[in-house]
Structure formats: C-alpha cells, structure tokens
C-alpha cells in the first residue's frame, strides 16, 4: 500500500442528523508522489473531502485512508491548509512558526518556513490579526510545508494571492514537493493555475467524484470533435461527454475509444476543455476506462 497516498471507498459525509450529504459514494485512489488537483464547482464537496483526509471530521459512511492509515493516526505526516487559513490572531508571526516547530520537533524544516514567509514582506513581530489575506496564506502555507508532510492537503491555497506571489509560491511548493516526494492534493477553481503543475485530476460534482485519473491519460482518452451541427452523421450519444453548439458548428467532447464521425475534425482537448466539459455535463456518463492504477478504485 506504500504507493497509495490516499484512497476512498464509498465515502460519504452528511452534515447534521437530517442535513444534506456533502459527499456520497466517493471512490478514488491517488498514487503516492502525485500532484493532484481537486476540481469542481462550489459545493461539490472538495473542502469536505480534504478535511476528512486531514482527520478533522469523521466520515458518515465508507472509509478513507491517508498514507495507508486512518487519517487521525497520521497527523504528524499530513499537512493541511484550510480554505479560510485559520491562525491564532493573538500570536505574532514568529510565535506562530515557533509553535509549529515545537509541536513537530522531529520533522520541522525551518528553512522551508523561512522561504515561504520571506517573500511576504512580513515582520516576524507583527500579530497575525494585523496581516493581509495574502500574508496569512503565506504563514499558513509555511506551517504546513515546514512539517515536511508526506501528504499535503491544500484547500484553495492561492485564492488570496496576487499573480506574482501565486507563481512564486506555486513554484516553491512544487520544488519542495518534488524534493521530498510529497503527494500534493490541491483544490482549486482556477483551472489555469493547475495546468502546469498537476499530473492527476479529481473532478467532483454534487458530492461525488466524476472523473479521476492521471492528467495525460485523461487527455489522451478524450477527443474533441468539431463538425456541422446538422450533419447526418452525428457522434454516438453514449460516447459524448458534453457537446455545445456555436452557430451551425457542434463541438463535442468524446471518449477516445469511440471514433469521431466521418468528416469531423478531431483534436486532443486541453485540460481546461476537458474539465469544463465534465463540469458542465448534467449527467456525466461513466468516465472512460481509466488508466490501470485508478481502475481498481472505481467501484
């Protein structure tokens, strides 16, 4: 199991006794060392999934394992940054980092923390309550990264950062992750921010996983077919993930195991086109047969 960073079976989470399901029937498997983007619209269950993986909440049904264990048993080896970047407002930046170091004496990497905070024009003596959103993000990321986690869970990590800081921190994050073989699981709305860095995708909608697999494999297993909307020869309906009509032209995302109709232009979709098609599709058909390692997780 050492090559699996995170795995879920029939995972469900209900809020409150009579509340609605935030997650239902989720099943997936993430290989160790991957950089995985969790993508989906608001309310898709991304944050719930990440907080379950961090051992902060208990699943209502099913099971989730992080680093091969119950999430609660591996807190020391998992880093997590929540969406709202909670920090103790009354502590200073230095006190916050010192607390992180004292709580993780065996793993703490002060250089990493220093590096993340350095770009933020931060006075170590200033109180956390006086920081800007971007500065808070830096401190929260520094805490998570300096733990040298084997699994790093980031919930909308870059939302409060300007494009420059976003670029800088993403680069830093990826370098560190690559150095240590860290598995990074990151939720985001911003597709562009994921394009270069992710090698694995988890597309969520309405509390369940719609698509799961290695980025390259997923791109290869889909075709973007473009043809006349009124042509007699239309793509086979069961192969169409989603189609859109612009004027007299129809653009359809097809599963690659089905050929595009005669006379249609076909090309490989971009990551953004793939994601948008799956997010827009009201009733997503079964995801295409995924690459070997994710296939067995699909229940």
């Amino acid at each position, binding site marked *: 199991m050492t090559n699996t960073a995170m795995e879920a079976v029939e995972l469900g989470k209900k809020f409150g006794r009579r509340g609605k399901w935030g997650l239902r029937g989720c099943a997936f498997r993430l290989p160790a060392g991957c950089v995985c983007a969790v993508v989906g619209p608001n309310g898709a269950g991304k944050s719930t999934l990440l907080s379950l993986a961090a051992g902060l909440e208990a699943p209502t049904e099913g099971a989730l394992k992080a680093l091969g264990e119950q999430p609660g048993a591996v*807190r020391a080896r998992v880093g997590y940054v929540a969406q709202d970047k909670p920090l103790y407002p009354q502590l200073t930046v230095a006190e916050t980092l010192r607390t992180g170091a004292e709580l993780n004496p065996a793993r703490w990497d002060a250089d990493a923390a220093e590096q993340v905070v350095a770009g933020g024009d931060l006075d170590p003596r200033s109180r956390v309550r006086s920081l800007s959103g971007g500065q808070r993000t830096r401190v929260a990321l520094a805490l998570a990264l300096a733990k*040298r986690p084997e699994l790093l869970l980031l919930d909308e990590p870059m939302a409060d950062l300007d494009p420059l800081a976003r670029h800088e921190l993403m680069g830093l994050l990826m370098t560190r992750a690559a150095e240590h073989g860290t598995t990074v699981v990151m939720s985001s709305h911003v597709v562009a921010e994921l394009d270069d860095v992710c090698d694995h995708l988890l597309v969520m909608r309405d509390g369940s996983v719609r698509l799961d697999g290695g980025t390259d494999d997923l791109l290869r297993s889909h075709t973007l077919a473009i043809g006349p909307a009124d042509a007699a020869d239309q793509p086979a309906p069961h192969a169409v993930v989603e189609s859109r009509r612009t004027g007299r032209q129809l653009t359809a995302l097809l599963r690659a195991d089905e050929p595009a109709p005669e006379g249609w232009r076909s090309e490989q979709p971009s990551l953004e086109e793939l994601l948008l098609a799956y997010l827009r599709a009201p009733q997503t058909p079964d995801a295409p047969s995924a690459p070997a390692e994710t296939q067995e997780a699909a229940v």
Partner: protein
Amino acid sequence: MTTLVPTAPRGRSELLAQVRLLVRLHRPALILWAAFVVAASALLWAVGGPLTDASAAAWAEYNACTSQPCAYDQDAIIRYRDAYTYSTLALLAVPAVVAAWGGSALVGREVENGTARLAWTLGISPLRWLAVKLALPAVAVGVGTGLLAVFHRLAWSAGQGRIDSATSWYSTATYYANGPVVVALALAGLALGALAGLLWRRSLAALGTAPLGLLLLWGGLHLVAPYLWPSVTRNSSLSDFLPGAGINVSQGVVDSSGGRHDLVSGCGQIYDVAPCRAAYDKLDAVGFYHDYHPASHFWPLQLASTALLLIVAALLALAAFRLLKRRTASTRPEVRIAA
C-alpha cells in the same frame, strides 16, 4: 534533508509545546486571574485582620454603652460588612465566570474560527487538545479558588464571636464561600463551558449558555444538598419557638400519635393566638419539630456536595470528550478497503 525523517515517539516535548501554546494564547486571562486572586486575597486578609479588629472594637463600644447618645465607630462596622459581602460575592462569581470563559475563549472561539482544526493539523490529536485545555485551566482555577476559599474561611472565622453582625455559618452565601464546594463548582463550570463550546461551536452561544447551565446546576445542588447527609431533629412544645439553628430541612408540628403536619400558614410558630390555637388543636398538635443541620454538619455537607459536583464535572468532561471523538473519530470501526 530528504525523506529520512526519524519518526520519534511523540511525547513529552510535544506536550510541553502544547502547554506553551496554551499559555501563549491565554496569557491575558492567566494574568487577569492571578491579579484577581491576589486582589481578592488582599481584600480577604483585610477583612479578617484590620477590618474585623475595627468592627469588633466598635461593637465592644456599642455593647458597653450605658448612655444615649452612644458613641461608637459605626463606619468601621459598615466597612467590615461591605468588604465581607463584596469579597464573598467576588468568590461566588468565579464559577459562572469560569464557565463563560471556558465556553467562549477557551473552546468555543477555537472551534468557531477554525484554530482548533489548525492545532489538530499541527499534530495535536483532538482528544489531547481538549485534555490539555481542561487540565491546565483546572489546575489554575482549582488552586486559585481553593486559596480564596481558605482565606474566606479564615476571614469569616476571625469575626465569629467578636462582631455581632457577622454572618452565621449557614447563611447561604457564607456557606458556599467557606468550603470546597465553590472550588468544585468552578471546576464543573470549566467542564460545562468546554462542553457548551463544543456543542454550539460558537463562542457567543457558549458564553451565554454555560453560565446559565452552571446556575441551574448550583440551584439543583442547593435543593438536594440538605439530603446528602442525615439531618438532626429537635422538638419543642407548642409554647416555645423552634429549637436549633442551622441549615433547614423541614419543620412543622407533631400530633399526639407522632404524625407530622405542615405549619399552618399565617400562624407559623405562633400558637398562643385564638385562631392559630384552634387550627393547631384541630390537628391534634402537641409540639413543633425541626429537621436541620447543625454546625457540626458543615464538613459532611460540604464534602458530600463537593463529591457530587466533582462527579457531575467528570461526566460533563466525559461528554465533551465523547462528542469530540465522535466528530473527529480518530478510531472509527474500520471499513476495509480492498487493495
């Protein structure tokens, strides 16, 4: 520098780190509490020392008076009474204040703004997080309140027999401030606050409900406490007043066959007035009875009440732990994941 990180057993240094974090977070509250304990101790020292002496001297002057107008230091008597009352009330306010603080600043705020989750992701397990949050404040609250209760008892006993207006041991406020019950109440307040903070997950809601819950608990204790220890019964004839001074349990009249009846309302202990005499004769009353706790029951009552409160506090803390465990469930029955 790479993945060869020693997985050291997480033990003492992490625990110390958690203690330091707690102290860092609640330094203002700790300083305020220490200052309160020092100030209240100083006040109680003054009550038991110079203020008692001055008041006793004034009472001695007053009692020695043979002529009108009588010259005595009335201000000293009033100063003593006020200082005693305020210091008693300050001590009795501690349990409710602890409940409010425990519910809001200690637990509710952290659950509400997400810093509890931050702590858990920094490697503190939720149950240990709560354990340290309860244990350290419990020590601070227990020691501080315990000291004040001792000082209160010393201050109170300094005035007994010397100050005619000093309160009796069974006067409600004095009784609660004079022994370990107030310490147990404060600890129950802490546990109640923690539970409220976890339950509502909101600082303000816990701030409102935890002290209210404590007052209900206190009220409940006040009702059952007299029955925690067997009371003493004294009887008197109908022409005498009820004997025995202490904590009341029940009183009434006894008929010739030994049966007990309530006092007739409007008559009470008055027999020698025609309508009352008729009413009591109709009941075949032969005397009054009085079930009460004399001064010798002070410690048994205090200790039994304290034990009861500590059990309640432990149950409240247990409920808080169970709630947290169910929410975060580090040890759920495992659902097997097929490899």
